[in-house]
């Protein structure tokens, strides 16, 4: 009965969402508030019903209702209860419920926050949000029903993919989906702006926080995905330019571009068309990414369920793009700029270049990802481009962006004078050049590493110059040091939040560069008692043990790790044997460090424990990536602090 109830709730929610979208639009055109109120009730109903459906699916998981196909495929009797809850988003159908629920939740928050402060835009925002929710509900009603029954009812389920039994996999999809769905809100406001012709700054001011929040969750999702890949998959990497990763990275790039270009519109009333275009593109890319990864048109190592939903996503994507283009054409006149760029050496120019580079990176990633499709269509051969292509083309773009990160926030608007340039950049550039020399003298020969590190120092120096100067100004006003610094952060939270996010990105850049340049690995087969050496560490194979670990069987090896300075420690890379899986799964053992991670993966072994093959890695600077994520989080929190009322 429960599954039918859930399926019914989804269908009713879908109809309600369509109804709400329509009456909201009519309400917007006719100005009848009763219709708008009805649409709000519909949105509330959609949220209630989707919540209900989601709880029913969780209930089915907790009670092992294997008559539900989705439950039977993603759990078995041995799955612990917390993974039974998170198995909700362990595969496609449940992910869609979560996705629809998030859209419904965002819709409610939009209603609460904006029904009074965005009168004209609001009906169209509501229409768009409910329209997007309706799409997801239709997908769940027709091609990917989460509550589909399974006959005969299996005695036990298949079990969650063991690779997903990890905290990273509990949080990664949630963050990623919050980011993806979060971009629905700025998109909805952009549609509202176009529909009403109010394409000024209002919609941008209203959606600034929304965009930052969506952008942050997307960043977090990408980082957690990298962390999961790093400590679960056992290849020692965190990013592989896989189509699925690229699909999430593209909207991140355009979202980042948008966060920057809005500042030019706010300040100079330029780039209106560009900004609306970026938001539409970002939203379209979230749909495109889902289409790409769920339709099976591009082969990926991520084993996702494929099916008819590709057609649905492609149709919806086409609808979104066509409607957006039509609206843009309709409002073309209103989107003209009111100002003009003056000088090449100006903040506008730096931001414009930042946008050009980010869009170029997006295009590169897009091109590389769909290249197999293109080459097959054009030349009839299946050709793909791998990580070398993406690195080769995007790295120069990213280096350019790093440089601009130092220039953009400090250079003057309109036209930078020589004095402005000297005041802001003389010291940072000098420090950057000196640090490049020091890094080179210290023995770093990778050009890329020297460049990245020197640019990092340069950007950090610009932030320091700005902060010190502003603090001094406050000190002269007679404030104490700490109140001056604190007041600066709170009063100019948006600026310094942005700086903190930049620092977070720099820390990540250092981590990525360092790990690419200095990580070491080797593989060896060891008899019991034998050791392998790497980077000054000795890894001695001390034996194998096996035990029952609940829902799987664990074969654990023991390695004694020593180097000259530290006390010997033990590491235990293992292999997990799941009864439902055809092959064992490696369980990585790692020790994270500030500079070096030790990382062991057990390969093949003799049953009697006399011999084992092991992959040994000393990964350098990887932890900086995760630390950068923390800095980025703090910066985001600072940036979205509510605006303080200026004291009289």
């Amino acid at each position, binding site marked *: 009965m429960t599954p039918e109830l859930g399926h019914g709730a989804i269908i009713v929610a879908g109809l309600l969402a369509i109804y709400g979208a329509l009456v909201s639009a009519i309400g917007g055109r006719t100005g009848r508030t009763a219709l708008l109120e009805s649409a709000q009730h519909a949105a509330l109903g959609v949220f209630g019903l989707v919540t209900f459906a989601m709880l029913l699916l969780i209930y089915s998981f907790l009670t092992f209702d294997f008559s539900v196909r989705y439950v039977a*495929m993603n759990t*078995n009797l041995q799955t612990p209860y917390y993974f039974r809850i998170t198995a909700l988003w362990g595969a496609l159908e449940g992910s869609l419920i979560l996705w629809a629920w998030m859209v419904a939740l965002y819709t409610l928050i939009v209603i609460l926050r904006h029904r009074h402060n965005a009168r004209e835009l609001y009906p169209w925002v509501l229409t768009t949000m409910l329209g997007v929710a309706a799409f997801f509900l239709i997908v769940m009603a027709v091609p990917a029903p989460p509550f589909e029954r399974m006959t005969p009812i299996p005695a*036990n389920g*298949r079990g969650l993919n063991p690779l997903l039994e990890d905290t990273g996999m509990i949080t990664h999809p949630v963050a990623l989906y919050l980011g993806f769905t979060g971009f629905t809100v700025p998109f909805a406001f952009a549609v509202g702006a176009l529909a009403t012709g109010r394409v000024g700054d209002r919609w941008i001011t209203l959606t600034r926080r929304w965009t930052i929040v969506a952008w942050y969750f997307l960043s977090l999702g990408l980082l957690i995905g990298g962390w999961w890949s790093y400590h679960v998959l*056992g290849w020692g990497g965190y990013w592989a330019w896989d189509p699925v990763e690229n699909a999430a990275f593209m909207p991140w790039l355009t979202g980042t571009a948008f966060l920057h270009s809005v500042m030019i519109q706010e300040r100079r009333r*330029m*780039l*209106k*068309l*560009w900004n609306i275009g970026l938001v539409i593109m970002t939203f379209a890319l979230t749909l495109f990414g889902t289409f790409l990864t769920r339709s099976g048109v591009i082969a990926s*190592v991520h*084993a996702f*369920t*494929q099916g008819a939903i590709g057609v649905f996503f492609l149709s919806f994507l086409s609808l979104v793009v066509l409607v957006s283009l039509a609206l843009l054409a309709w409002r*073309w*006149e209103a*989107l*003209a*700029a009111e100002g003009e*760029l003056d000088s090449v050496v100006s903040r506008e*120019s730096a931001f414009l270049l930042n946008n*050009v*580079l980010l869009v*170029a990176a997006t295009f*590169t990633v897009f*091109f590389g990802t769909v*290249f197999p499709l293109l080459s097959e269509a054009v030349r009839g*051969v*299946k*050709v*793909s*481009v*791998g990580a*070398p*292509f993406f690195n*080769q*083309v995007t790295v120069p*773009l990213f280096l350019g962006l790093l440089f601009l990160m130092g220039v953009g926030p400090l250079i003057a608007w309109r036209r930078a004078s020589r004095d402005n340039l000297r005041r802001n950049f003389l010291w940072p550039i000098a420090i950057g050049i000196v640090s490049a020399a020091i890094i080179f003298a210290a023995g770093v020969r990778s050009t890329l590493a020297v460049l990245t590190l020197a640019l990092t120092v340069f950007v950090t120096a610009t932030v320091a110059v700005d902060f010190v100067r502003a603090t001094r100004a406050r000190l002269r006003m007679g404030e104490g040091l700490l109140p001056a610094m604190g007041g600066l952060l709170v009063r100019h939270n948006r600026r310094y939040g942005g700086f903190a996010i930049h620092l977070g990105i720099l820390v990540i850049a250092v981590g990525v560069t360092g790990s690419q340049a200095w990580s070491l690995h080797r*593989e*060896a*087969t060891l008899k019991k008692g034998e050791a392998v050496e790497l980077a000054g560490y000795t890894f001695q194979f001390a*034996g*194998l*043990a*096996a*035990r029952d670990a609940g829902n799987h069987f664990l*074969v654990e090896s023991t390695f004694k790790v020593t180097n000259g300075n530290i006390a010997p420690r033990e590491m235990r890379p293992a292999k997990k044997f799941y*009864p*439902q899986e*055809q*092959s*064992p*799964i490696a369980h990585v053992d790692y020790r994270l460090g500030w500079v070096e991670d030790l990382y062991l993966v057990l*390969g*093949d072994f003799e*049953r*009697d*424990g006399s*011999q084992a*093959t092991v992959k040994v890695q000393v990964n350098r600077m990887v932890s900086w990536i995760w630390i950068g994520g923390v800095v980025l989080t703090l910066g985001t929190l600072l940036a979205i602090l509510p605006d303080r009322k200026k004291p009289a």
Partner: protein
Amino acid sequence: MKGLPLKPKFVAGIAVLALALAYMIYAGVTQSAVYFVTPSELHTAAKTGKAYRLGGMVEKGSVNWKPATLDLRFTLSDGQAKVPVRHHGTAPDLFGEGRGAVVEGTWMSEGYFQATLIMAKHSEEYKAPHDAASPGYQELMKSLRSDQK
């Protein structure tokens, strides 16, 4: 253009950047293109030194693994043609005989495919859980457990 507040020097700058990007993409593609082939296709048009991604089934009984030298050899087949593959190092977890695998590498003039990367295919189909009570599984667990100290 009305929508773009750009003077000619900006348009020229962006055009230069776009050309540079086009060149980088072109160079990137020519340098790192990898061709998807089946074993039959590889046999008809194998060129040494060119990067391929070869997909097929791992032939039953073909896997030969020498732990001491980390030397892995197996045969990939598409039902018509067979290609001997060599790889240095352990295969990924999902690799096994009778299953699909994709290998990346080059065709060697000595008559084998030198793989630098093995990607095992995760089976998408529903597999009945293998019976934890079956003799084979029990024996495996027993032999693993016997080493416990």
